[in-house]
């Protein structure tokens, strides 16, 4: 008996050529220009069709978003500091997926759902993700989360769809003060260094770039920040942890311990009592 196959059904199974590589694109988020308006959060949710996460007042300054999640891909942090000399400081920063150049989530993904797309952005292919959650554990920034609705991992796509149409991501478009800038990463890094010099010269010598360059074992980020306080003030890790960097060392240790135990047991077993 002949089975008639609808040709359209097979289309999805044919592996097409990946699109040609584009220059790497990313974000430079300058916290010194952020006014804490959260327009980025709303623009992101609106463009990406993300639901609201609940109506709970946290009391954590004006931050009722709490964290990045499967349904929150931009998160403005609010840090209130009473200054020792009197007065108060209020710091704002819009957090987002860092689109790491060496992304632990991608390394941890067993299905290949997490890829680097043609814009050099870290992208979760929702239809391939099996929801194992390894990426959630691997991300040192707490960016990825698994959705309650479909069980798969979600995060910022850097508005892949908008980029393909040649327009900037929704958050950068909505930002009224250009605290969020989108562009070719190399150009952004130059811009960020120049901006850092300006900010330092204008009386904030403690300012620094977070993630613009490699930091120890962790390679630089495609979404990096200009900050004026220690990373912890913005809910960012001081030294992000790259699980794969210590893998060789850990395998060696495991092997060594295993070998040691084998030898020990061999010795014990050879000497009958």
């Amino acid at each position: 008996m002949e089975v008639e196959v609808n040709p359209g059904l097979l289309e999805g199974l044919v592996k097409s050529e990946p699109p040609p590589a584009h220059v790497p694109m990313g974000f430079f988020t300058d916290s010194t220009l952020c006014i804490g308006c959260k327009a980025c959060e709303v623009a992101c949710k609106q463009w990406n069709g993300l639901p609201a996460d609940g109506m709970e007042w946290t009391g954590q300054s004006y931050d009722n978003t709490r964290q990045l999640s499967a349904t929150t891909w931009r998160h403005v942090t609010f840090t209130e500091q009473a200054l020792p000399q009197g007065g108060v400081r209020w710091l704002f920063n819009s957090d987002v997926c860092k689109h790491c150049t060496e992304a632990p989530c991608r390394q941890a993904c067993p299905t290949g759902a997490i890829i680097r797309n043609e814009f050099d952005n870290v992208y979760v292919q929702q239809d391939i993700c099996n929801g194992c959650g390894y990426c959630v554990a691997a991300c040192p920034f707490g960016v990825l989360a698994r959705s309650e609705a479909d069980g798969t991992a979600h995060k910022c796509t850097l508005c892949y769809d908008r980029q393909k149409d040649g327009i900037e991501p929704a958050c950068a478009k909505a930002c009224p003060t250009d605290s969020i800038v989108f562009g070719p990463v190399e150009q952004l890094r130059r811009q960020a260094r120049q901006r850092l010099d300006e900010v330092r010269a204008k009386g904030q010598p403690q300012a620094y770039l977070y993630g613009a360059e490699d930091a120890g074992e962790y390679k630089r980020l495609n979404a990096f920040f200009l900050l004026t306080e220690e990373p912890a003030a913005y809910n960012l890790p001081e030294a992000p942890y790259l699980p794969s960097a210590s893998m060789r060392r850990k395998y060696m240790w495991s092997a060594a311990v295993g070998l040691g135990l084998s030898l020990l047991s061999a010795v014990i077993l050879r000497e009958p009592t």
Partner: protein
Amino acid sequence: MPSLSATFGRGAATTFQEDLQSSDCILIMGSNMAEAHPVGFRFVVKAREKGAKVFHVDPHFSRTSACATNYVPIRTGTDIVFLGGIINQVLQQERWFKEYVLPYTNAATIINDQYVDAEDNGGVFSGFDPETKLYELDKAHWHYAGEPTPSAAVVPPEAKAQAWNQTSAAVKRGTPGRDFTLQHPNCVLNILRRHYARYTPEMVANTCGCTQEQFLEVAEQMMLNSGRERTGAIVYAVGWTQHTTGVQIIRAAAILQLLLGNAGRPGGGVMAMRGHASIQGSTDIPTLYNLLPGYIPQPAKSRQCNTLADYLEQEKVERGYWVNLPKFVVSLLKAWYGDAATQENDWGFSWVPRITEDHSQLPTFVKMAEGKVRGLFLMGQNPAAGAPNARLNREALRQLDWLVVRDFFLLESATFWKDGPDRPDPATIGTEIFFLPAAAGAEKPGTLTNTQRLIQWHDKAMDPPGDCRSDLWFIWNLGRHLKSLYAGSAEPRDGGLLNLTWNYAHDQPEVLPDGSVSRLQDEPDTEKVLREINGYRISDGSQLKAFDEITDDGSTACGCWIYTGVYPEEGCNRSRDRIAVPGRHVNPDWAFAWPANRRMMYNRASADPDGNPWSERKRYVWWDGEQKRWTGLDVPDFPLDKPPDYRAAPGATGMDFIDGDSPFFMHSDGKGWLFAPGGIKDGPLPTHYEPVESPASNPLYEQRSNPTASIPEVPLNPIAPPADPDYPLVATTYRLTEHYLSGGMSRFDSWLNELQPAMFVEISPELASERGVQHGDWVVVSSPRSAIEARAMVTPRMHSLRVEGRTVHQVGIPIHFGYAGEVTGGQANELIPIIIDANVSMHEGKAFTCQVRKGRLSQPSDTPSVPVASRPQQEPMPDTPTQAQPEGRSA
């Protein structure tokens, strides 16, 4: 904004937000700009990044304070002390901009010798009538020496928000005595010196609660950033207006800007940040009861103006631009009544309704609560939550026979008959309520006139869903129904309705941007309305290009003279233009700014008296000696061919009277008014009065609070006496970025609600510890009117201040919550009293007294009336392939 018209000539922001980036120093006071106007705040940030000082002087440390270079805390309601202190420093240190002030302002003008300053009279100026609690504006108490008594052109007391010609009319002769040597004791600058002499840094610190150093730093920077090379700007919003002294606070800022030579110059000016979308538009083409379009006075019954000639005689101004008033009035009547308006019937002037009393919002609601109002239309208004003393407002609404509410959802003003903190019994309420769903911005075309007089058109993107319709649809169809109901009436009083031109139907079916034809057949053509507002010639229907083409012989029709030029020819809607030249911040082809597309008003003052730029750095508009014309980056706000050295011939009238060095030509003397001989109802100079409810005494006068403020004496509006021990805390109110007003446009939107889901009040750690309140606890905030509950946000951003040697705590209350919607909470307006200022009928919602205790109300808050929708709805986007559906749909 009578303060700005009385100082400069027109009641609107003198500058535009983009120009703030040219400023060397920005003083933000009475405005939470970063939160309430975040998009415009980008230009403040730009200025700051270019090195400008940005000061935020405010009772509470907001996101604006966080983004400023300096923050100065002050007690709410003491702004005139702070500004008066700066004025005193400027005068004491002789750092006023002499070359600007002497020719461009009335500094040298001599005031008549009957004038008695509040400083010499226990806190009231001469002319105060304690019986009526009003100043006798019809007597020349504050007038220029030698001026006649202004018997006719004085504003009737029932009219709030003065028409501009009436302000200008305070100076009739226009050639007052001047003493440029400033020796005369009654010349304005010397009056100013005496008036502010007591506003010393000690007094400022002691009254406002800031330190002397903080105050002096602001004063010093404002003075450093003035003169030929540098300019400073002042930004304010409803944090200044919502006081019984609001008009005078703004006047104080305007005086300071004149003294420093900052008005009409790039990076200078007074930037009024309006509180609502198109609120500028709603005073230009007013929803106010006492103005006709273009700031022309509505005829008042008390003025006995039966004929147009009577009216024009009463409102007559002989010098300055307002000589053109008859042209604007006749053309307005032609626009309204078309062919029915003829010279024989006085152009239909008898059909224009007369005002009979103060019909402004607050007195009207007080009357409504007494059962004296039968019906009400609410469109984009939510008085049950969004107006002061909301309880009284709800009581008022319950007295109505009928109420029409047009809005996005069933908000407080549509559900007050069953919900609310006062737990009404629906069986006892006879009000019949009609709720009509409103179309949102993208579902209707039209213009918004923003805070900087910029008229910006927006197209309709799609038809509104279901029965939602635009407000214009409602008004137009209501008018059509009324006209047919009254058809055939011979009553003279119905002539206005029957003869009203009302021909706004689409000529062709309306086409949507996607090319389809709108399913709505009875929407009017919005562009037709705009074309009428612009004005046209009766003979051939051609559009007017500029307001100097308007005539008083019935050959032109014009709906609002200041808007002329917005639609200058067939098919040319300039409010739709969107051309911005990169690198330029003055973009004449980005929409249309009234008047005459001028972005910065009074810009003649950006050139020196000889017409040259004050400096290369501050070039803006100047006299081109070769072309014999004013030119520059903007449309010059001056007769284009009037040379700087022009001097009026004796007996000149109208614009011929205005000298070549008089940038403020809307005033009949052409000068900026440091001292306001007219146009302000509570004094020619700003002077400090305490808020009506205040824990402090007035350091200057026995007269504690503004003597002209009125308090409706009704049971629901009790007022705390001065320094009431039961209400020892100072309350102030403000906005958060995440919500809008009482929530009518935000509290049904999950994306916004999740960002600020609950009502909270901000208190200092000191007050929290005094009251035993922990961060996050429930607290009850009470005033003599009512009590609300909220979560306590205990934060070092709230400052307890030292005032008169003791500690004064301030309580910060966001205004956004109510009992309807997806998120609900205690509404600030329960607490706010109705106290009415004499100038514009404004309440004092920014300064009152309250008490805070730990705990909750016995009646818990309402639960949300709208279930959480978890926006967006999960239907797929129509006509969109699966791969292109929004990423988060499954999330």
